[in-house]
């Protein structure tokens, strides 16, 4: 890693360069992915207390033994939701990383070509 240079316009690690253009591309794609998943996560998570306050069938009616829908979701199903979200997000983020790495290399190669 001794071949790392940092400038205002680019960062270079070995053969690989980040320009502000390629990083903005990565940032925008990552932001879209993270905030989309974040919106779903917070919508579901905050819907639970909202329904606990305002929807009687959710919090007061037993649906399986002593389980209400509220109790069942918070004690069991919420974890399935979290695992699914985290798995899907990690896979998509990995794919995005791979795609953007290739694109970033292309952008930096093109930029270098134009400067030359």
């Amino acid at each position, binding site marked *: *890693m001794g071949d790392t240079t*940092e*400038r*205002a*316009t*680019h*960062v*270079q*690690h*070995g*053969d*690989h*360069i*980040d320009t*502000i253009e*390629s*990083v903005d591309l*990565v*940032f925008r794609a*990552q932001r879209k992915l*993270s905030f989309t*998943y*974040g919106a779903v*996560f*917070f919508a579901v*998570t*905050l819907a*639970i*207390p*909202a329904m*606990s*306050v305002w929807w009687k069938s959710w*919090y*007061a009616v*037993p649906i*399986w*033994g*002593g*389980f*209400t829908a*509220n*109790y069942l979701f*918070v*004690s*069991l199903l*919420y*974890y399935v939701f*979290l*695992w699914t979200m*985290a*798995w899907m*997000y*990690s896979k998509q*983020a*990995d794919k995005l*990383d791979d795609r*953007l*790495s290739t694109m*970033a*290399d292309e952008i930096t190669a093109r930029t270098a070509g134009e400067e030359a």
Partner: protein
Amino acid sequence: MNTIAIVLVIGLILFTIGLSIFSRRFTRTTADFYLAGRKVGSFSNASAISGDYLSAASFLGVAGAVYASGLDGVWYAAGFAGGFMVVVLFIASALRRFGEYTVADFAFGRFGSNRIRLVTVVAVLITSLFYMAPQMFGAGTTWQVLVGQGFFGMDAYTTGVVVVAAIIAFYVAVGGMKGTTLNQIFQFWWLAFAMTLVVVFSFGSGFSYPQALADASDGPIVNTKAYTVTELTTPDANGVTPYDKAAKVMTAEELATVDEFITSGADGKIPIAFSAGNKLHELRDMLFREPGHRYNTFDQFSMVLALVLGTAGLPHILNRYYTNPSGAAARRSTFWVLVFIGMFYIFAPIAGLAGIGFIKDYLANGGTLAAPTVNGLLVKPDQVMPTLAEILGGQWLMGVVAAGAFAAMFSTVGGLLIAAASAIGHDVYEKYVNPNATEAKRVAVGKIAVLSFAALALFIGLAIPTYGLDQAYPALIAMMVTWAFSVGASAFVPMLLTGIWWKGTTERGATAGMVVGLTSAIVIIFLNIFQQLGTLGKEGILGFIGSLTYPVLFTFPLGLLTIIIVSKIDGQLPKNVDAIWMRIHGTASERHEKQHGLDKVGSMFAKK
């Protein structure tokens, strides 16, 4: 005294110390001491993060909270787990890509000022202390149940606090992050094993989840609390005394004991049982399966936010992300953390619910317990795990659970000590006091910081019962951890989110947001404590603010808004903001490492 349990706990302690001494050979540099050489793989790191995260609050407190409060207690488990979604979505990979040692390093690198680094250090130390307090309280109460007596002139609680503080200080100082990581991996799997055993024994003894939930919800939740003679006979605003409430629930025999206590005018307190009210739906009975035992409408939302945002504001958890070899590995670690702790948190409420039926039946059949009880219920709900284990599996299972409880405390306090040591040793000493210090001297300062912070934690642990906090809240351990989450969520998360995702964040904005978030959260928490202890009334603005159990619904947006407004007004971005941006979101470093195979996890124990 439970001999088998003590033998198992001593075995755990010796194993822990052995691991630390083994790791010592591989801790030479500050990167080794604070970050385990950045060579911790996803699965190992996930186990270590889980061990770091699952504290006494999770192992003893969640089951205790469910035992005492029903559904509102189950929320602790769900919220603790949900917090990692915020970490994986918004923070994990960016923090790792930035590639420093600590949160304070991130603040300094992102905003470029010594001021924000020092503010972050102060916030790290305060948050760590808030998190340390319930661990030490858990140490004392577990020792009370397990051993039941003190040594060297100390009572049982004090002995537990002193022993745990001393052992953890030793193994963290000796083993550094590598030793702590190894210990946390082992400790996580031990406490997962213990929790699983309790649940398996419950089902093996005839426990049915839906039926037990129906039985527990057959009538209102019954609370237990200890009162003095004066408190017992003092009417509230409706003219009802605690004694009147107890008379509706307790048996004639138990009530006669209370009568005798009042007539004698004795000092001290006596536990009573009484039906709980519903804070959310005031006209409904407070049933176990319904929300409202702990939280009114405001707190239902605020508690959820405190837990899901607070995880991303815990310095000892964030520091662990720097030990990953890459941003993608940081995401994978978090996924595995969610799987591990998700299973754990599904089991913990089962144990809490099972405790209600099994303990009541055991006492009804003439059984006796070391833990104090009234009306078939434990006076201290946090004791449900060891008590249930003793009923279901005798001394062996109680021993496994007791060792699990100590493992939970060791692993979390170990992580907190490393975080505090890095804040003092790395962020202050190496940067300001002696930047030219040798590696050996830096590591030595880190060890001194560990010992100093452990001493501070010891005093806090001893102060909790002195000021009556243990009587002010039901299931105090889980409650105190949520305070730590609130402080972390208010101080760090707005700074981290804006620092990572909004280029326009300025140093003044971030600093102001941290100060506002931190101080407002602390002020509200202390007002709430004063109100619970009876030194602050419920009237006026202060009374209203003091009634907020969890401040996050106010303090997180307050911190975030402060950052946005001050940054907009200020407008002075760091001169090298593009370079900083490329460091947070750029991938050249990872592409380079991938090309040359440097992203592969090596051995934490490779000799250099």
